[in-house]
């Protein structure tokens, strides 16, 4: 991956587009970078220990993951598409960050599969189209490919029969198919019929999710206590791309753990 980035950079194109801006949630795309990096540098167990705080937030393994991400998103040769230098990441919105993919402003963008819906109708998404997705590869060619993602939960506050019925319906394959046919939505449900998916990104996602070899990991920042996962981790990532060093960011996030 790094080799590919170098090749693209040698051609004079910035290989990566990155954008962290997202209103009051600014910084969250950065947490995805770190989570994906950690899954690849230290593997599943460390990742889950990190989320559960069995190892501190600023453990050496996490620092290693930051260093891996550092080589990409804090590398002036790699970023930031047509948006400027590394610090432009902080003010580029995640919605607009992928736009240069279309005109060759950058080659790659790390974002959730929902980003497919951001493209205009006339953009052809597909293997031979204007843009397409791929799974971020592991560091070694033959190791397991970790898949990281978020999801929605259906929670009932009451166990009345009608509530339970709705709950059951929402967890059925029938609902998954109906909802998926409306577009911009995908599910790991076993009964999901791939043919109802109209968006190629969603088709690709469903294929990855239903692959029996896929190991899915839940988004770390989403699973952490909110005062970390939706607060200082985000602001820490903003500080990080605007020049704060890794150790300071790690320490400040760790100290905010409840």
């Amino acid at each position: 991956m790094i080799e590919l980035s170098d090749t693209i950079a040698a051609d004079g194109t910035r290989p990566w587009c990155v954008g962290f801006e997202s209103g009051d949630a600014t910084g969250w795309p950065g947490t995805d970078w770190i989570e994906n990096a950690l899954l690849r540098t230290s593997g599943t167990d460390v990742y889950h220990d990190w989320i559960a705080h069995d190892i501190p937030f600023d453990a050496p393994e996490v620092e290693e993951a930051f260093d891996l991400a550092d080589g990409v998103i804090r590398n002036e040769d790699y970023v930031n598409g047509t948006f400027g230098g590394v610090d432009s990441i902080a003010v580029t919105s995640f919605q607009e960050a992928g736009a240069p993919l279309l005109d060759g402003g950058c080659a790659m963008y790390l974002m959730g599969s929902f980003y497919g819906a951001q493209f205009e109708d006339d953009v052809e998404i597909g293997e031979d189209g204007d843009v397409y997705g791929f799974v971020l590869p592991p560091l070694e060619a033959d190791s397991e490919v970790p898949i990281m993602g978020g999801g929605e939960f259906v929670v009932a506050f009451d166990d009345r029969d009608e509530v339970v019925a709705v709950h059951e319906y929402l967890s059925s394959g029938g609902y998954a198919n109906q909802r998926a046919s409306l577009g911009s939505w995908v599910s790991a449900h076993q009964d999901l019929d791939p043919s109802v998916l109209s968006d190629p990104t969603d088709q690709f996602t469903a294929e990855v999710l239903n692959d029996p070899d896929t190991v899915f990991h839940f988004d770390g920042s989403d699973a952490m206590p909110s005062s970390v996962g939706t607060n200082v981790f985000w602001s820490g990532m903003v500080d990080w791309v605007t020049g704060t060093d890794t150790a300071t960011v790690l320490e400040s996030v760790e100290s905010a753990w409840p």
Partner: protein
Amino acid sequence: MEFSFLDELPKLVWMLIGIAAFLGVIGLMLVLLDAPRSRRDRWQAAFFLGPAVLLLLGGLVHPVVRTTVLSFHDRSGDAFVGLANYQWMFQRPEILQVLSNTLLWVLFAPALATAVGLLYAVLIDRSRFESLAKSMVFMPMAISFVGASIIWRFVYAYRPADQEQYGLLNQIVVWFGGEPRLWLLEQPLNTFLLILVLIWVQAGFAMVVMSAAIKAVPTETVEAARIDGAGAWQLFARITLPSVWPTLVVVLITISVQTLKIFDIVRTMTGGNYGTSVIANEMYSQAFSQGQVGQGSALAVVLFVLVVPLVVLQIRRNRKARELA
């Protein structure tokens, strides 16, 4: 979840104590400031004030008391933690920055907005295009803070030097041979750039009020000063300014209260990132995004304590003005 009156009793007692204290203070103030003169006056006052007092109790007093009580509790509002939330506020560097940003806002925004308004009002007074000039500056008042913030986000937008700028400010910088900059990232400049948005919106308000005050300056005084040989500057410093001073203070206080509570501009332009957060924004983030009800309440209480003196000042000035009249 069952509502058990007995379980809630301590909270209710707290609330009653709070309400009683608040009513006591208000009552005392009313008695001291404005004792009704006769029994009939008293009944009349009760009749007219009753509905307003009821609404105030439900909409203002109860939330104030509840927020104050919550500020001494933990994140979920269950366990009493004493002053821990206040200690947290004055120890965390990021919250100290929030407080100092708020201070910057209060120091600069009202003064600058009022000064710009006053200056503009003086300059265009009795000029040929006065009404046109007035409407130009007044126009931004019609735009909400969120709308104004979106406009100014475009003004501050950044593109690297080798590309076409679409942000007005960077384009101007480029025209003068400079390098485009990421304005919203540069601390503490970014706070001032946000303050500029407030000034842009509020200067119109200051201008209209000040202009009316200037027009109310008696022409006899102005003419007398002219005959005595006062120049333009002397006329402004010795006649206009002292005459409009009470109005100026009212405008200043009004904008100060608004500035203390400022939320929309920060939230829309930076979301409180890049070191630009202020109390109201942090209060919202803590209480509603992060579920830190105790810390959010503590921030709300601090904001309330900061606003109260200004409101009291305003009321006292009003009373004085009425006594003079």
